């Protein structure tokens, strides 16, 4: 569980300090690894490994859909702003 907490910390640190959108998304991925590790470790300790395993698989499927959508969004953002800097996303144009 300590390792899962460490992964959450690393991901949150990346989210708070990085400016590149892809780096921010890598931070989210690291957090998701921590969550899946916490789920499975809890199942392992509580002897509910089958249930934890099915929850982790559901989580991975949701994660893949999230990644596909977010990366498509990032490519669209790059096409509009010609940059991956989050600070350039402050202007909203209709």
């Amino acid at each position: 569980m300590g390792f899962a907490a460490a992964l959450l910390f690393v991901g949150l640190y990346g989210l708070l300090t990085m400016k590149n959108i892809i780096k921010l998304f890598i931070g989210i991925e690291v957090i998701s690894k921590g969550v899946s590790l916490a789920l499975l470790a809890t199942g392992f300790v509580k002897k509910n490994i089958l249930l934890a395993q099915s929850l982790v698989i559901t989580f991975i499927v949701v994660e893949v859909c999230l990644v596909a959508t977010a990366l498509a969004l990032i490519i669209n953002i790059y096409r509009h702003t010609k940059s991956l800097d989050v600070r350039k996303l402050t202007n909203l144009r209709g």
Partner: protein
Amino acid sequence: MTLQMLLLAGLVLFSILAVLAKDLIKSAISLAVASLFLGIAFIRMSAPYAGVFEISVVAGLITVLFMLTIALTKAEGDVRESKIARLVFPLFFIVFLLIDVLVMKSLLQKVPALPETAEQGAFGDVLWKQRTFDLVGQLAVILAGVFSVLALFRKRNKDE
């Protein structure tokens, strides 16, 4: 147990590399290696299906998606990350580890949890019979993902 600890330590190390590396491709590869370690740890925790999913989908497919995005955007030198964030990270991480070791161990024993019940049956029974609604949700999420990607990459008409 030692090997498990080494795997988890490697997972944290490569995750740190993925977040702090300057080069985006190195970040993506570090993330894939971290997923590989996590998958092996899952298999060692007697969860082979989750391990295989983690290695094939997260270490494989998601890395390919990241590489494609990095290749399509081609703006690596564009964003300057602050050097202070990289320099200060070890300090914050050591403080966090101290808190993690000192506080979490006592805190975890106080957190209420479901009672321990030994599971029976195979993995397929749990996934198809107990978590049937999850599978419906998964299908809905996959469809939502497909439609959103299609919507994001659609070609615009001249009128729009």
